[in-house]
């Protein structure tokens, strides 16, 4: 088990939350160390919620990162944008709030499902998917749990070219949260 004091998950909706939470739990992070900040249904767009809360979560993370073992996972759909565009957008939100852009050694991971989280789930189901089409929502969000656990159990595979590009990107981002050794060994 990891010794995290806390990992905060900032995300757009319940499906993203369930995916991220189970992914982190399956990678060995104790459920009691996870803290979720998810957009309330119907209050605003999930994308806007994440953008609005990103800077304050980063500021809070930085205020504790020097002396506590904390992490931040941010999840927001790339939609039709490229990963580069989304990262620049999030960097812009930090700069606008007077924060420095994310550095490579910070335990802040950004997951950018493209086109959205359902794309990843259908890919993990073995469907032939692309990152352009929109896929239907699952009947229950928990339907992704087993798929996510399987992915977490394959730390080598999830970084290979066989994995959907945006999902592979998230798995590389995960190494910011979990040390690369742990990424390989926890479930390996």
């Amino acid at each position, binding site marked *: 088990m990891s010794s995290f004091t806390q990992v905060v998950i900032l995300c757009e*909706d*319940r499906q993203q*939350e*369930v995916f991220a*939470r189970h992914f982190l739990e399956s990678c060995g992070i*104790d*459920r*009691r160390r*996870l*803290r*979720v900040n*998810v*957009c*309330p*249904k*119907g*209050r*605003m767009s999930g994308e806007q919620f994440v953008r*609005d809360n990103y800077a304050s979560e980063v500021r809070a993370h930085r205020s504790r990162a020097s002396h506590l073992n904390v992490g931040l996972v941010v999840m927001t759909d790339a939609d039709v944008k490229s990963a580069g565009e989304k990262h620049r957008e999030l960097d812009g939100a930090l700069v606008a709030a007077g924060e420095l852009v994310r550095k490579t050694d910070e335990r802040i991971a950004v997951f950018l499902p493209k086109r959205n989280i359902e794309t990843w789930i259908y890919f993990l189901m073995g469907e032939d998917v692309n990152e352009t089409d929109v896929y239907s929502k699952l009947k*229950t*969000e*928990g339907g992704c*749990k087993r798929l996510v656990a399987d992915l977490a159990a394959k730390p080598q595979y999830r970084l290979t070219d066989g994995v959907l590009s945006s999902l592979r990107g998230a798995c590389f981002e995960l190494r910011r949260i979990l040390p690369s050794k742990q990424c390989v060994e926890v479930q390996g």
Partner: protein
Amino acid sequence: MLRRIYADNYRALVNFELKLGQINLFLGPNGSGKSAVFEVLRKLVNFVGGYGKVSDVFGSSDCTRWQDSCIQTFELEIAREADVYKYELAIEHAREEAKLRVRHERLWLNNKPLIRFENFDKSDFQPEVQLYRDDHSMGPRYPFDWSQSALASIFPRKENRHLTWFKERLQRVLVVAPVPQLMTEVSAQEEVRPSARLENYASWYRYLSLDQQVVIRLNTSLREAMPEFDHFKFEPLGEDHRLLRVHLRNSDGTGTIGYRFTELSEGQRTLIALYTLMAVSQTEGAGSYTLCLDEPENFLALPEIQPWLTSLYDSCSEGEVQALVISHHPELINYLLASPVGYWFERECNRPTRVKPIAADDGSGLPISELIARGWLRE
């Protein structure tokens, strides 16, 4: 799954109907009728479970105060895959005689009768029960006492499996408002059901501990939720009585110390009770239990709420358990309302309860708990 509740002439519930999902959060001001819905459920469970006569379970003070009607009506619908069971109960309050009578009690499966107990308001009519077999053919017909539940009196037989299933499923609707100060540590005997405020926790756990599956599941979940928890142990106190002890691990892993249950903090006792409710409801198989929890987060430390809540949400989302939760806590409200599971209760003084789903976008960007605190939710 309990999918519909109807009540008329019960406190502030007048012609009140609520359709339910797998997880449901009841919000609203004090006195808006949330707990009255739980009371109705508890009374129906107790009545059909044979825990008392109609006058023991229901009271004349429960009638809506601003109405003159002396008939209370209740309905429940429980779905079992594609089948729907509908239970109907009407109670007559004969005020001049200070008596309560069952006016009718009926159970239907997919709109076909399983039992009908009719007590017409005629002096020459003897109240009668008409039973139906599982294939809905007419079964025995016999006179019955209007002070009791006819359903409660039926014993399981091979030709009434539907009726028996409904009775057993209804007994798995657990309605609790945990109050740790009232939870006792001494058990005189096993008790099958938790009491309203979990006063009988030790006796209920004594019953549950007969099932090793429940014990294993509960121990596992408690060790995750309370890293210091190790195990429960009953200590004999005389011939029948048992004292419940909770063994907590030393932080250096060298052993455990057994504390009397009431020596634990109120928060620890509440946490144990909540994880026990989860464990027992997860053990019986998908959809076997409905948990009705009135302010479950009371007494819990803030960091303990979300881990328990995510466990509950996952269980509900996967169909393992159904939950109805009353809460005023921002932590619970903001987390659960990331899904459309909220119902807003409201009423004016001496007027009936009204309930509406919470879903609409108000454009303020404020957390829902903050909108509620400001009184802006329905503005």
